[in-house]
């Protein structure tokens, strides 16, 4: 075979490669040229017809052709790939605004979310977090808390009674007695949970709601300590420095007892609809633990003192999310719950 023939095969092969417009045409060309029966592959077979002396040169020449074709193929491939990349980069039909497809996720109840956040705050401040019984006895719910039988304060606690004269706790305060009887003073503890009041339900009243009670027992506890603790605690809860005020409030298990108001966070105390134009929002009840309560729990009031507070978790949740109907909290409606993902 003449050199000119080889050149012919070569230029035909390169033309075929260059003519390929996409990867599949290129693959076809590759098979047609370099496959078992490809025109370029078949060139090697011609070597038998070449005189032995010239075989070396012929072989080299054939290899050159092969090499040129392989290079051409590689080059063509790179070109195609580059064109494809450029085309993808230039493509403006890809829609990034299509909605996300989420993994199937559930939700945590808003009350759990708020409660957990409060618990975290208290844990960070060195409090125990405890959980006490919901069916209680009269002693823990009333008597030990300085609310003897026929005390008018029992009116504030319309009570659910069981047939066997137990009751559903009307507040989380029985936890005070249980905590004092089990924890080694000094200590600080909070106990959130469900409480029950015998009253009809409407948008702002529920017979079942949630409270969070707090208790600190130490050797010397004053109103000044309580004031400071409430200020720190409420600032932590709301994540901003707050102004609070204490004013007289009546709870039989504390003496003195206080209502603790927070300066309205909406108007900063100037007065608005939320604070009913008073500049203050009533937030929790608190006070120094009544000596009778310390005694009921087995602590000597001359040795130990304490403060306690109780706040309405359900109410806090409603405030936080602007929920206008308390019945949603215990309502189990997915249309409500899904809003708190």
């Amino acid at each position, binding site marked *: 075979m003449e050199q000119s023939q080889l050149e012919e095969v070569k230029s035909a092969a390169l033309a075929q490669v260059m003519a390929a417009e996409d990867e599949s045409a290129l693959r076809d060309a590759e098979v047609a040229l370099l496959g078992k029966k490809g025109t370029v592959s078949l060139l090697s077979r011609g070597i038998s017809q070449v005189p032995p002396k010239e075989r070396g040169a012929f072989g080299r020449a054939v290899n050159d052709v092969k090499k040129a074709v392989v290079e051409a193929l590689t080059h063509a491939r790179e070109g195609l790939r580059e064109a494809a990349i450029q085309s993808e980069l230039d493509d403006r039909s890809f829609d990034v605004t299509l909605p996300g497809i989420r*993994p199937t996720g*559930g*939700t*945590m109840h808003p*009350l759990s979310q708020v409660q957990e956040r409060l618990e975290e705050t208290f*844990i960070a401040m*060195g*409090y*125990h977090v405890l*959980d006490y*019984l*919901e*069916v209680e006895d009269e002693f823990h719910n009333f008597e030990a808390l300085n609310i003897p*039988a*026929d005390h*008018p*304060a029992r*009116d*504030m606690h319309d*009570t*659910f*009674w*069981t*047939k*066997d*004269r*137990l009751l559903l706790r009307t507040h989380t305060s029985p936890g005070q007695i249980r905590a004092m009887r089990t924890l080694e003073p*000094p200590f*600080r503890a909070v106990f959130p949970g*469900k409480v029950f009041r*015998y009253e*009809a*339900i409407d948008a702002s009243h529920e*017979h*079942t709601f949630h409270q969070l009670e707090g208790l600190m027992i130490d050797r*010397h*506890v*004053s*109103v*000044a*300590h309580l*004031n*400071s*603790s409430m200020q720190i605690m409420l600032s932590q809860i709301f994540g901003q420095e707050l102004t609070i*005020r*204490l*004013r*007289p409030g*009546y709870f*039989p298990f504390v*003496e*003195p*007892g206080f209502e603790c108001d927070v300066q309205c966070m909406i108007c900063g105390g100037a007065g608005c609809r939320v604070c009913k134009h008073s500049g203050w929002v009533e937030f929790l009840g608190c006070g120094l633990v009544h*000596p009778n309560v310390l005694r009921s729990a087995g602590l000597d009031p001359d040795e130990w003192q304490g403060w306690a507070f109780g706040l309405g978790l359900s109410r806090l949740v409603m405030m936080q999310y602007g929920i206008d109907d308390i019945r949603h909290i*215990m309502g*189990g*409606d*997915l249309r409500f*719950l*899904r809003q708190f993902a």
Partner: protein
Amino acid sequence: MFISWNWLNRHVDLSGLDPHEVGQLFTLKVAELDGIHDIGEGLEAIRTVRIESVEPVEGAKKLSRVVVFDGEGERQIVCGAPNVRAAQGRVAVLAPPGATLPNGLEIREAEIRGIASAGMLASQKELGLSDEHAGIWLLNGIEPGMSLPDAIPVQDVVWEVDNKAITHRPDLWGHYGIAREVAVLTERSLRPLEPRVTLGHEERVTVSVQDLVRCPRYTALLIEDVDVKPSPEWLQALLRATGVRPISNVVDLTNFVMLDLGNPMHAFDTRYLATNGADQIEITVRAADSAESITTLDGVIRDLYDEDLLICDSEKPVALAGIMGGADSEIRSDTTSVLLEAATFQSRTVRRTSARLGLRTDSSARFEKTLDPYLPEKAAHHFCVELQKICPKATVVTPLVDISSALPAPKPIHLDPKLVSSRLGVDISVGHIRETLTKLGFVVQDRSDGYLLVQVPSWRATKDVAIVEDLIEEIGRLVGYSNIPPQAPSVVVKAPELPIAKLQERQARRYLSFGAGLHEVMSYGFTWRPMLDRLGADPSGRIEMDNTISAELDRMRRFLIPNLLNFAEKNARYESDFGLYEIGRVFQPIAPGVLPEQPRCAGGILVRRTDDHERLFRELRGVVEGLMDALGRPAVRLESTRGEDIGLREAWMHPSRSAQFIMDVAGTRTEVGFISLLHPRARDVIDTGKSSVAFFEVDLDLILSIASGPQKYEPLPKYPASTFDVSFEVSDTTSSADVQAAIVEGAGSELLRACELFGNYYLGDGKKSVSFHLTFRRDDGTLTDEQVHDIVNRSVAHLSASLGAVLRGG
């Protein structure tokens, strides 16, 4: 309770003070005010007029043409009120053209039925003074031609005191007690009550009290020549402002004294009281007997019990002590002789009777607080003094008959002044303490040891002030809590125990919400009875309530599931695929009167639009297994025993498509929960559309009471594993767990590392195919195919022998 600013001014000169500002101070230092209301504002243009003539309007039955004298001249008004017809000569109230009523109505000259009308004769309601709107307001003892606020003190500021905030302060249930506090707050002086009335000497009333514990003091006196008529306008205005409807001078004055001093009283018409041969009224205070009844003033017949206390004449009960008088002896317009009662009753007695009868009155609300036993005498004199002012002929003909137990002596409290500073956390001088307590009516004496001897005034001594802490509160509140600088408590230098149980509960919640994709709900501690009934469940074994909001909530929940089913059904109206869970306490009775077991449980429910119940069951089972892993308790596993074999008996559980979760608690195999499909009968009544329901419940407290095993690292394998898949045909009643156990047992080799089900197909004719993926591995070299085959063959032979399994492939 409503407190009138005008009324307070009777006891303290508050001139120049702003009732709103003083109200703020009262909230900060005494008790919370729920509101401060201005009443009678904008009534300056309203005038008093005399009705000169009234004529019917032709063709309009209800209308009258009225000519009134307004002080300057006559004007003509058309009026539709029925009571105007008989009002000729009376003084009424005119809203002249140009006046605007509190409800926004602007008065204009008008022509009605062709008759010009120069204004409107107004009712109390139209003036915003009360709800009275039966007719126009007719005044007594008022001249025509005056501006209304000049004629009658209708303009007032009313404080609405939060009753809960004064539960412990019987002294604050009247204007005088409030005035005492206000005097201290404003640094003005409290006027003493007016002098006593002149009493008579006739022995026409006797009193006998059978139980001085339940009635510590009873006083009575007889008043003759009483002229019952409407109260003067000033008195009516005060009563209206405080929410009490004026009736007649005698009744109004009993209310007035109650609202002033806080001691309820009662007036009897003596015509309806029996007398003895000596013309004496014999009052007896005694316990009721359970066969008795009394018709109270409100016309209701009340059946009595022996816990009730009665006021009786010599023949019959005439009043329910401290709660309400009897209907017969009430004051009428022609009453001339009045027996006045002023007494103190035991709080518990009044509370019990009023609670049982559901009869809460202004009187019972006060007696429940335990009133000052020194008060009845003051109240009786106060009544008589005021009565004689408005009814000068009235004469007290008897002495004050006064039966009482020994009145309590003032209670002394030894107060260490240093303790006041220590408890409040701010320095308070002895002088300041002495001064503050004295202003409030405490008597303070210095003692040589530095202590103060403090005597509590009788009006604070019944339930309120008894110990040092109570005195500290008095000083603290008047110092002003905002004047106590906050002081951080000393740090407790002790690492707090982490609340493990709480943290695990959070872990469970996170897994169930974000791992398993369920939605957390909260439901009542009660079980929703209609759901239980629809499910056909036996409600026994649940704590029964004695009082219920509704019959639907009459028992506590023993399981979380029925409430969750209720929620599932509600939500199935909107969605067909979802899962709910709740973490909460359930209640398991132990014995009557003993606190029940109240474990925290986690319950979940899956609602899936599928007919493949086995698949649904597996999905939920996976959720629970994942929960156990999340809690670090992988040892809790499903027992393959069917529910029917292990006593899962609630009607909503599926006896043959349920199972229990088991763990080892202190060497004892313990049930910690269950998983089940809905019983087919329950499925028929619970409407979840085309979706099927499966649920689980586990006792978190029980699970978490067992320490989690230590988790250990396993070295990564050095040699590759060989895998082998096998399928068997077995009877469709053979459980996959049994097949799996047989494979492992038959293999009898530690080289079989895992045996996982990947197929379970029902073939019909009582057969099914189960396929397992087997994994073999050596730690010390590569396994040969022969070794694997040997083990598989042993398993196949064992399965064939023990379960009659036929190898289908492998």
